[in-house]
C-alpha cells in the first residue's frame, strides 16, 4: 500500500545557549498508510512531541529541522510556503494535544472554536458550521450536544474537553490525526472511551492515526505498527503485535516490564518489585555517538562500549532493532 505520510531521515536540532546545534531527533524514518495507526512510544524527553511538532511545522523557537524529508500525500511538507502549510494543518493533518486546556481558548465557546475550523477549512457559513459542529460533538459522544455547544471549556470535564479536542481535530476531515498522549490526564473509564472512539472514527472515516504514548501496553491493541524512540533515536520498529509479544531491544523490554497490568480473577500476589530501568533519559546535549541506552542497559558489553550507535536493522520480516546484541538477545 502506498504511504499517506512518509518521513525520511528526519533530523531536528536545538540551538543551545552558546549557539551550538544539539541533536533532538536523529535519522528518523517511518511511514503511515491510510486508515492505519502507528504508535510512537518512549519515555518523556525521548522526542515524541518534537517529532509531532516537526510534522506540523510547529516546532518551538530554537528548534530546527536540519535535514530529512516529510512527505504527506505526495507533497513535500518542508518546502511548502507558510500559507499552504496553514491550510494543510487542520485539513490534511491535525493534532490533538497532550493537555486539552492549553489548546482550547478559554474565552470562546466550544461551538465557536469548532465552527471557526469549519468556516476556515470548508467555507461553511455560520448556521451550517453550527449544525455540523453539533454533529461532530455527537460523533465524539458528547451527551446533550445541542446544549454543550454553547459551553465554555472550563465548564466541561477533562474527558469531555478531550472529546471536544478530537471533534475539533476532525472538523477539517484530516487524512492524518496526530494524537499526543490523548488520555494521560484522564481516568480509566474515559481512557477506554477515548480509545474506543478513536478506533471507531478510524473505521468510519479511514483517517490514519499517529498515536503518541509512554505506555506501550496501553496502545498495543490500537496500533498496527509501533516505533520505539529513545533519546531521539528509533531503537525498535515493527508490527505492534510482534513488538509486544517478542520485544528485542533491552529498552523496549524494560518499558514493557515496568508496567503493572491488571490481572482479573487471579489469586493474591505478594509484592515483588516492579522491573526498573535505572537512571533516566540523557538530556539534550549529553547524547554521545555510542548506543544512547548504554548507561542504563543491563545487557551492555564491551562491543557496545567500543562501537557507535548501531543502525536500525531487520531482525525478522517487518521488525527492526538497533542493538549490537540483538541476535543474542533474541534467543
Amino acid at each position, binding site marked *: 500500500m502506498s504511504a499517506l505520510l512518509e518521513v525520511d531521515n528526519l533530523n531536528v536540532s536545538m540551538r543551545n545557549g552558546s549557539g551550538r546545534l544539539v541533536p533532538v531527533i536523529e535519522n528518523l524514518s517511518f511511514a503511515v498508510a491510510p486508515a492505519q495507526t502507528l504508535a510512537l512510544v518512549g519515555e518523556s524527553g525521548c522526542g515524541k512531541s518534537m517529532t509531532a511538532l516537526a510534522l506540523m511545522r510547529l516546532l518551538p523557537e530554537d528548534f530546527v529541522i536540519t535535514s530529512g524529508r516529510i512527505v504527506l500525500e505526495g507533497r513535500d511538507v518542508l518546502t511548502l510556503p507558510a500559507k499552504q502549510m496553514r491550510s494543510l494543518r487542520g485539513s490534511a493533518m491535525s493534532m490533538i494535544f497532550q493537555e486539552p486546556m492549553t489548546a482550547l481558548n478559554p474565552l470562546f465557546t466550544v461551538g465557536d472554536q469548532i465552527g471557526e475550523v469549519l468556516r476556515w477549512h470548508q467555507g461553511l457559513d455560520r448556521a451550517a458550521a453550527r449544525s455540523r459542529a453539533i454533529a461532530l460533538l455527537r460523533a465524539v459522544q458528547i451527551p446533550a450536544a445541542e446544549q454543550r455547544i454553547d459551553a465554555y471549556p472550563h465548564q466541561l470535564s477533562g474527558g469531555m474537553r478531550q472529546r471536544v479536542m478530537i471533534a475539533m481535530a476532525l472538523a477539517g476531515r484530516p487524512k492524518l490525526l496526530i494524537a499526543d498522549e490523548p488520555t494521560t490526564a*484522564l481516568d480509566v473509564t474515559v*481512557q477506554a472511551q477515548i480509545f474506543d472512539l478513536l478506533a471507531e472514527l478510524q473505521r468510519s472515516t479511514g483517517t490514519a492515526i499517529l498515536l503518541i504514548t509512554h505506555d506501550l501496553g496501553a496502545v498495543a*491493541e490500537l496500533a498496527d505498527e509501533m516505533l520505539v524512540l529513545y533519546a531521539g533515536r528509533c531503537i525498535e520498529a515493527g508490527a505492534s503485535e510482534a513488538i509486544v509479544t517478542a520485544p528485542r531491544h533491552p529498552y523496549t523490554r524494560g518499558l514493557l516490564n515496568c508496567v503493572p497490568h491488571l490481572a*482479573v480473577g*487471579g489469586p493474591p500476589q505478594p509484592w515483588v518489585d516492579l522491573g526498573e530501568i535505572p537512571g533516566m533519559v540523557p538530556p539534550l546535549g549529553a547524547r554521545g555517538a555510542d548506543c544512547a541506552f548504554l548507561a542504563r542497559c543491563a545487557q551492555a558489553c564491551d562491543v557496545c562500549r567500543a562501537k557507535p550507535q548501531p543502525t536500525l536493522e531487520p531482525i525478522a520480516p517487518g521488525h527492526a532493532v538497533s542493538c549490537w546484541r540483538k541476535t543474542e538477545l533474541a534467543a
Partner: protein
Amino acid sequence: MSMAEAIRGTGTREVLLDVNDLVVHFPAGRRHGRPSFVHAVDGVSFRVRRGTTLGIVGESGSGKSTTAQAVMRLVPATSGQIVFGNRDIAGLTGRALREVRRHLQIVFQDPFSALNPRRRAGDQIREPLDLLGIGTRSERDERVRRLLAEVGLPPQAADLYPHQFSGGQRQRLCIARAMAPEPDLIVCDEAVSALDVAIQAQILNLLKRLQRERDLTYIFISHDLGVIQKFCDEVAVMYLGKIVEQAPAAEIFAAPRHPYTWSLIAAAAPPGPMRDELKRRHLVKGDPPSPVDPPPGCRFAQRCPAAIDSCSQRLPVLGAIGPDHYVACHRLAELPCLPFDGC
C-alpha cells in the same frame, strides 16, 4: 507486608485510622431560593491498619481527594469522625492540630506545583522540621542528607532548585519532604499518575521499600487499576461521594460485586475476548451526574446497566458480604457474577 500476611490478610494489625460517616459538603450557591451543596464526600466509612495501603479508585470528581484531604484536616469535615491513633481528630484546632499534622503527610500528583520554585531542595525538606522544631540545627541537616539518600538523590541535590530536577526526581523530593517529620500516614494523591511508566516503577518500588522499613501506612489514590492491584492491600471504590465497594485487593479483582466496580474493571482488563465481553455488558457510558444536591436513591442508578425502578428511590447501604468485603447495591443477591470469578 510479609508473604504470610499476603495469604492470611492484614486483619491482625492495629487500626491506625478509623473514619466514620465522614461528610464533606461545599456550598454551591442557591437553587430555587435554597442553599445548595456539592456533596463531595457523603457518608464515607473505612479503616486502615498500620503498615498497610488503602487504595481509593473512582472516576474524576468521585471525592477521592476530598476524602483524603479531610482526613489530613486540609478541608473541614461537615460531619463525621476521623479517629487517628486513638483519638478523634476531626475537631482538633490550634496546637493539638499542629501536633497531629506531623503524623499525616501528603504527596501530590504534580511535584512541580507542590514545590517552591525559589527555595533550594534541602531547605524545602528541612522546612517541616524547622516548623515543628524537631531536633537541633545540625541534627536537621543530617536528617536532610539521610532523607535524600533514602529517596535515591545525591547529597549535592540539597543545593539545587526544583527546576534543576526531572519530574521523577522532583517526586522523590516531595517524598523526602513528606517523610521528614517521620509521619505514620502518607496520602499519595495520584502521586505517580503524571510520571511516565519507567519513572512510575522507580517511585512505586521506592514507596514500597520505605513502607517496609518504616511501617508506613498509605492512602493511595490512583485511576490506574493495574497499579492499585499491585500496590494496595485494601481497595475502596468511590462513586459520587460514596464508597460503593470495599475489599482486600486480592478479592476485589477476583470477585467484584458492585456494577460500578465491574465497569472500572471492564475498562482496564487485559485485551482479549473476555475484556470485549466485559466492556459490552458492563462498561458505562458518559459522565457521572452532578454532585450538587444529588437525588435520593443509588447514586449510580442513572448509569447502571442493572438499575431497576426501586434503585432510584432508596439509597443502598454498604453491607458486609464476607470478611472485609463490603458492597452497597440493592440487587446484590440477584445479579450474576463476572465470567472470571468462578462463583
